[in-house]
């Protein structure tokens, strides 16, 4: 079959389809004419009550079915709209909130706090609940014993003098060390001063109403600790000193 034959057959098919449609129209016309010619007989037909009742029920059922479909369609439509609305609302709140400076600062602080906590944790872990002060001095001493609750807080150095600060959150302990010859000025007014042994050497314990000071020295260094703790605790701190390596 060549192209011309195919085109011809296709054309004939199209024409026949159109003709079938024409026959269909004529057929409907014939049906209606037949019915019209039998109109007198048709008018005599009685519709029973049972038939009307059935149709009423049928219509009611279709109505319910249609309402249900309509309802489901609306739910589907509105649920997607509500979802979009909520998404837009959340986005708007996020933009507005993040544009407020106080909020941004709070967020920033949150991350900083997290970061500080991590740093503190890492430092505390180094030496059994204590810390090793980091100073620019070649040699210094630090206590390896601290009363319960006290941890290293900060350190300062100036020349040959170093000051370490420890805290339990409320009270502080100040540990000061300096090469022999450094001058220390202590307020001993109304204070009670006693000589106490610190290991093989001795020191002076100065007790005042608002605190207690322990002062002692070895061949090279003078030491002083002041705080608001029991004397024996101060002595234990003093006895635990070690030199950095």
């Amino acid at each position, binding site marked *: 079959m060549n192209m011309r034959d195919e085109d011809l057959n296709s*054309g*004939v098919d199209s*024409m*026949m*389809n159109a*003709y*079938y*449609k*024409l*026959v*269909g*129209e*004529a*057929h*409907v*016309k*014939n*049906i*209606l004419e037949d*019915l019209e010619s*039998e109109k007198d*007989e*048709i*008018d005599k*037909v009685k*519709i*029973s009550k*049972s*038939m*009307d009742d*059935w*149709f*009423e029920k*049928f*219509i009611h059922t*279709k*109505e319910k079915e*249609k309402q249900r479909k309509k309802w489901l369609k609306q739910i589907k439509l509105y649920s997607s709209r509500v979802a979009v609305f909520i998404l837009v609302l959340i986005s708007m709140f996020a933009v507005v909130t993040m544009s407020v400076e106080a909020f941004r600062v709070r967020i920033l602080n949150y991350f900083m706090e997290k970061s500080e906590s991590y740093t503190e944790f890492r430092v505390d872990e180094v030496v059994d609940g204590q810390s090793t002060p980091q100073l620019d001095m070649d040699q210094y001493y630090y206590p390896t014993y601290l009363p319960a609750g006290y941890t290293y807080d900060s350190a300062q150095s100036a020349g040959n003098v170093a000051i370490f600060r420890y805290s339990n959150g409320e009270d502080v302990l100040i540990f000061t060390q300096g090469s022999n010859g450094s001058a220390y000025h202590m307020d001993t007014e109304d204070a009670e001063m006693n000589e106490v042994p610190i290991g093989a050497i001795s020191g002076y314990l100065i007790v005042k109403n608002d605190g207690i000071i322990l002062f002692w020295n070895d061949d090279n260094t003078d030491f002083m600790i002041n705080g608001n703790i029991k004397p024996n605790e101060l002595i234990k701190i003093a006895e635990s000193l070690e030199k950095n390596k």
Partner: protein
Amino acid sequence: MLAFLSVIENDVVRSHLEELYLLYNKELLYVANKILKDYHEAEDIVQTAFIKVADYLNENIDVKCNKTKGLIVIIVRNLSINQYNKRKRRYTANIDDLVDGISDESEVTPEINVLRLDQSEEVARLLENINEGYADILTLKYLYEYTDKEIAEMLSMSEGSVRTKLTRARQACKDVLGGERYEYA
């Protein structure tokens, strides 16, 4: 009847269905009863026809136009014939005998179609004479443009039967146009 008409709501399809029922219930019962000769069976067929046609009514349909009326009449008529054949247990054997006599190779030229365009009503009558369902199924397919599946659902038959009947109806139409049966018109 008036009681339930009073509760009609503004639902387009529902009102179309009710309008169809009110306008054509007598004619449909008449068509079904004429074939089945049984009023109760005819009622059942009309009810079935409304159930089927309800799914094919759209909002733009004109209930009062001849095309709509023709559609539901065709459905009722075919359902009635099916029921009649079931009852008589004859089904379509006699119809198939008629079709067997029709050549499958009828040559139809465009000229023949042009010559008989104004005689389509006679052609439709001839088709009905060959088989009551041929003109109906051609009409559903080419005038109402329903798919084979939709026609099968409407007429309570399988899609295969629809395709077979359509093939035979087309062949019968070509045969009529070819002149073999045209002298009966």
